[in-house]
């Protein structure tokens, strides 16, 4: 312990400020770091690699669908492509992205803690994630999987002739990484809040991560063991779901969705947390109905465990079950709507600054409302029988999970980038990027709503039975191209900003919160020079607060005059 402490003050420091980045530049110091901020950055880099892999697979799928009879891939390969897209994006990107990157980085900062409760466990969780990811990549290059990311039995357990076991191992290991992170978050939130930081003074970001961690603790083991049962059936013929043994393959679906529906909330709740922070900051207004937003996070987490059956409306449920799950699913709309209305009310009579993070946060609202409302169609029994298994569902969950999570991830990264790296990015490029991504997203997925409503089934390679679908598919693929360009834009300017970006002041947005007000420009290894004492409620904004940094100071190379 003390050995690492000694290294912290390198003698060669030429009046360079000491922070968590400059404290040690060696590669080794990054790979064995116990600093939650560095681990967050490692996660960020890794998560983006997987996002790229998943996007390439999506690109193949979209390209194939530009023709009713496919383009270049065999149908077998097409199945492996959409499975790769789903598995990589869900298990290695969406479930991880916001909690492990932004949560890891900012939870201790917001709580006024020097680190997460268990830094070594945190590092272990990163390596578990990396290990799981490598298993996934090995599974991909050694042939891939063709079951879809849902691994339905008996296809996955008996008939599929692909790398099911390897992929399941990958998901299983990644699950343990999530569990480790969730345990860390729960302990840190319970036990390491700064003096004066009561539960109802916590930023909503923290509440959201608390609810998320509970879902991870309760849900992840279920899917882990369910998938493991598929693997042992393939390996040892221990067949709990096997119809040959009098088992019920639909039981797999029940257990799989018991986790995988709440998994959507693992993706979207942290996103909502991010958006709450940003909207309050750039509306210069207290979050309207703070307690309701906090409680609705928990309510969504709780209700989320009672809706899984809506995935089986068309696979042999009793009327009673179906009605129950339909009702419960519709109820999720209530806490979700509470959040949306409260955000809208927060904007009302606020002093709104349309910065890049704010633009993304508003974009999140746009996508989430469309995703949420179309979700209500799907929760309706009669309508769902028509829509289930079509592109309508595909579009719906992309709007919710992908639109929601990615917009919020980008919002969060843009909001906290000055704190994470000490650099500004050019405001103008930020907004251009946001507009391209936002419109690319609608171009990609709007046509899929129509396709699904017209009856195009998901996961089909050919649609020569209905060539009129081609126009929509081509449009959707073009949208995916726009989206790809859109994602390039922030990657380029954010990377450039590391070298050329204007030096960010400690609190460029004049935001509230411990992470902005009580830390250095870039936080030091143990975050705070002394543990802060909290004396006020969260989001103590007023419309007379200083405005955020002016756009001219965010250009590359801009220098801001010191205001002491």
């Amino acid at each position, binding site marked *: 312990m003390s050995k690492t402490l000694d290294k912290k003050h390198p003698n060669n420091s030429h009046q360079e400020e000491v922070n968590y980045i400059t404290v040690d530049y060696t590669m080794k110091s990054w790979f064995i770091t116990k600093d939650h901020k560095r681990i967050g950055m490692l996660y960020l880099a890794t998560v983006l690699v997987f996002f790229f892999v998943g996007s390439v697979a999506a690109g193949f799928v979209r390209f194939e669908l530009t023709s009713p009879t496919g383009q270049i891939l065999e149908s077998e390969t097409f199945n492996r492509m959409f499975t790769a897209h789903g598995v990589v994006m869900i298990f290695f990107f969406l479930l991880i992205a916001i909690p492990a990157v932004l949560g890891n980085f900012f939870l201790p900062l917001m709580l006024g803690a020097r680190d997460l409760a268990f830094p070594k466990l945190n590092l272990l969780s990163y390596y578990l994630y990396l290990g799981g990811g490598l298993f996934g990549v090995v599974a991909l290059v050694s042939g891939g999987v063709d079951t879809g990311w849902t691994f339905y039995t008996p296809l996955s357990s008996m008939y599929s002739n692909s790398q099911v076991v390897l992929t399941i191992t990958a998901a299983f290991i990644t699950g343990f990484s999530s569990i480790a992170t969730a345990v860390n978050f729960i302990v840190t939130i319970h*036990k390491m809040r700064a003096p004066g930081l009561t539960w109802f003074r916590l930023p909503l970001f923290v509440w959201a991560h608390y609810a998320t961690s509970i879902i991870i603790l309760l849900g992840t083991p279920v899917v882990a063991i369910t998938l493991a049962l598929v693997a042992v059936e393939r390996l040892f013929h221990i067949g709990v779901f096997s119809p040959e043994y009098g088992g019920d393959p639909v039981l797999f679906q029940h257990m799989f969705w018991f986790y995988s529906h709440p998994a959507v909330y693992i993706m979207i709740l942290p996103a909502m947390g991010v958006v709450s922070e940003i909207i309050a900051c750039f509306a210069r207004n207290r979050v309207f109905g703070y307690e309701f937003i906090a409680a609705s996070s928990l309510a969504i987490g709780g209700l989320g465990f009672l809706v899984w059956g809506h995935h089986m409306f068309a696979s042999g449920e009793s009327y009673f079950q179906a009605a129950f799950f339909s009702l419960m699913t519709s109820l999720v709309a209530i806490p979700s709507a509470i959040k949306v209305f409260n955000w809208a009310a927060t904007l009302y009579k606020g002093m709104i600054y349309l910065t890049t993070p704010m633009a993304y946060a508003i974009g999140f609202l746009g996508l989430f409302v469309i995703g949420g409302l179309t979700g209500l169609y799907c929760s309706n029994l009669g309508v769902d029988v028509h829509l289930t298994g079509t592109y309508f569902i595909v579009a719906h969950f992309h709007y919710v999970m992908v639109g929601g999570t990615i917009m919020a991830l980008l919002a969060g990264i843009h909001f906290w980038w000055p704190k994470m790296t000490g650099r500004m990015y050019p405001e103008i490029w930020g907004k251009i990027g946001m507009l391209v991504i936002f419109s690319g997203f609608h171009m990609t997925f709007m046509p899929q709503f129509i396709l699904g409503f017209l009856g195009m089934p998901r996961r089909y390679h050919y649609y020569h039975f209905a060539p009129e679908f081609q126009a929509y598919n081509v449009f959707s693929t073009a949208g995916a191209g726009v989206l790809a360009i859109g994602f390039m834009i922030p990657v380029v300017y954010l990377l450039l900003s590391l070298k050329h970006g204007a030096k960010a002041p400690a609190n460029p947005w004049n935001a509230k919160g411990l992470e902005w007000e009580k830390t250095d420009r870039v936080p030091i290894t143990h975050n705070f020079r002394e543990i802060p004492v909290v004396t006020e409620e969260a989001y103590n904004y007023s419309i007379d607060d200083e405005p955020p940094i002016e756009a001219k100071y965010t250009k590359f190379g801009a220098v801001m005059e010191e205001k002491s």
Partner: protein
Amino acid sequence: MALEATHGNQMNPQKVYEQFEDIDQQNESYLVGMWSFLITEIMFFGVLIFCYTLYRWQYQPSFYAMSKLLDMKMGTINTIILLTSSFTMVLAVHYAQIQRRAAQLYALLFTILCAFGFLIVKYFEYSHKFHVNLFPNPTFVWPALDNPALTASVPEPVAKMFFSLYFAMTGLHGIHVVVGILLLGALSYLVWKKSTLVEDFMVTEMIGLYWHFVDLVWIFLFPLFYLMPK
């Protein structure tokens, strides 16, 4: 009970890691963390018990007949072994709290011995099942070789389902016992080497929690499989 030693005791000069304010906060964090982890463990086994419940509900008469194929004697011996090990684990935590290192080490070693004993009995049980071709893979022979009369009425698929559940659940429990042996072994080594990591009783306490959980799972599995009512 003259058990004075709790956290923060002067007798326990323990390292406080830099993210914590004091030893109390650290120890409480460990406990909250351990219990959170145990919740995930409960969900792990809960899923399997849920599957078991569904199928037993569906196939109760057959499951009852199948349960007679399990060796009640060995199951009982294993239950006694694990209960004993839980007791010695309690002793180990107690001796850790009052700083009696040698006694703690002996209690830990005895716990490990019990764990091995459990695995040895389990090994004989499993190998007997393989021997009479009751492992549910293509070598499965039905009706059961060692009791055809009892099992003649049980359809073969259900017999395979019973043994699938049996091997999945006791197998997962067995893996937990192996992990327990590794943890207890590492702990004993640290205690023997007088490592500063285990100066405080907290590490012993947490591994103790884990070990009690493993025992508790067996306390559920034993009646579910061996003591089934008609």
